[in-house]
């Protein structure tokens, strides 16, 4: 079964710490460097997983110290491929079939304590990374919304977002990075990521959401459909493809 834009996405959130030891901002920078500079250029040709971005969650406006990596895969087949690579080895004494990666995992696991992942399928109008790059979609900060909807109604929310809210959001300067349904659940969660110019733009948008007539109409229109929204503000690592404008 192919997805709307042919891709699937791995949403990978990582607590960057050494167990009970918070290593500080420098460790976050090092981990993101390992993702964007060390792993992403190998992951694309070897595994078909393409880094969309690595972000850190703004500590003032979300959980810390967490970073979020978004990877684009060639559909479900692509996700199965990385699982074969990591789980074909029955004794699990090594983390990957590719021994060249042992050093990378050893270093990464010294500065990360916990990883929480989601598998995301794109909505009909979610652009691929190549389309995002061609359009020049990029931001100084990103708005990440995790929307809990009534069971079974994720696709309805996505469709309504594109029709009723995206054009209005674009008037506020928001650029859609993607609108995704969380798979392996009861179609009750949607993840939406928007690019914003900078923190000042975020503050203006945040204020507008409480008074802008179109925003209020959208919120009223989704009453009974939306059960909860958790929003983080993300700041991008400069080596992310959405920042460089190039594939890894």
């Amino acid at each position, binding site marked *: 079964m192919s997805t709307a834009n042919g891709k699937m996405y791995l949403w990978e959130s990582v607590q960057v710490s050494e167990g009970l030891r918070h290593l*500080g*901002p420098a460790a*976050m920078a090092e981990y993101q460097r390992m993702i964007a500079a060390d792993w992403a250029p190998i992951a694309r040709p070897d595994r078909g997983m393409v880094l969309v971005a690595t972000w850190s969650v703004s500590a003032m406006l*979300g959980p810390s110290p967490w970073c979020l990596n978004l990877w684009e895969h060639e559909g479900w087949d692509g996700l199965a491929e990385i699982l074969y690579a990591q789980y074909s080895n029955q004794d699990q004494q090594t983390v990957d079939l590719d021994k060249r990666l042992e050093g990378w995992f050893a270093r990464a696991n010294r500065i990360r304590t916990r990883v929480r992942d989601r598998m995301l399928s794109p909505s009909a109008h979610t652009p691929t990374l190549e389309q995002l790059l061609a359009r020049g979609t990029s931001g100084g900060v990103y708005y990440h919304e995790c929307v809990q909807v009534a069971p079974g109604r994720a696709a309805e929310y996505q469709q309504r977002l594109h029709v009723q809210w995206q054009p209005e959001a674009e008037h506020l300067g928001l650029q859609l990075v993607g609108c995704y349904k969380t798979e392996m659940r009861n179609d009750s969660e949607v993840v939406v990521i928007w690019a914003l110019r900078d923190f000042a733009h975020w503050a203006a948008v*945040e*204020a507008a959401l409480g008074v802008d007539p179109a925003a209020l109409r959208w919120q009223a229109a989704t*009453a009974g459909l939306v059960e*909860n929204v*958790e929003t983080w*503000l993300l700041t991008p690592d400069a080596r992310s493809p959405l920042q460089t404008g190039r594939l890894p």
Partner: protein
Amino acid sequence: LPVPNAKAYHWEYVDLAAGIANLGTPARGAWFAHMAGEAPGRRQRGARLVGLWGEIGITGEWPMHLALWEYDDLAALARAAAMADAEERALPASAEDAASRLAVQGQGKWLRPADFCPTLDDLLAARVSGSVYYHQTVRLAPRAAADYLRRVESDWLPLARRLGLQLVGAYASGLGNAAEAILIWALRDFDHWQAVERANADPDVARWRASLGGVARDWRNVLLFPGPQSPLQSGRPP
């Protein structure tokens, strides 16, 4: 008429689990001292420290701690977030971070004050202070925060004052779908606290709670122990 509070607040909730392994109980005092030491630097970024507290374990979670900062408005808070992000990204890989030695993880929120929420200057002028504080996190129906806070002002505040509760702050959590409110109150002491808990049987209080059906879905109350460096304890602006 009083001027509506137009400030923005940064709610900084910190897990000092490192204290379990390394520092023991003094971690709380060390964190209070560290955050008080940070206040002048953050002041330059537009933040004024309202309070420092540690969560009282038997009512919530130990070792969780809270700092509350006041900004002139949301744009000022956004400028501070941008500066903090830029500074952190410019740190060399070997940089040690003093706060990181104390805290394992944290959670930040921005809070939008209710119109009737006092500012820090209001609190200091009115000498609002307690030896213990009541922190309420109220989970609400989607988009119900403004309605809930209006009800707090009209229906609960007079009752709360009768019970001796002093309002420190009443806020809607920013980000998300306006489905969370946070209230902070100053109490005289633990005897006062237990009297407040017993007042749940008071018919007026019971009516207030019953009136929230369909608006407030759940709430979690914890007691906070104040750091002595908090402006609300010293009575002086930071």
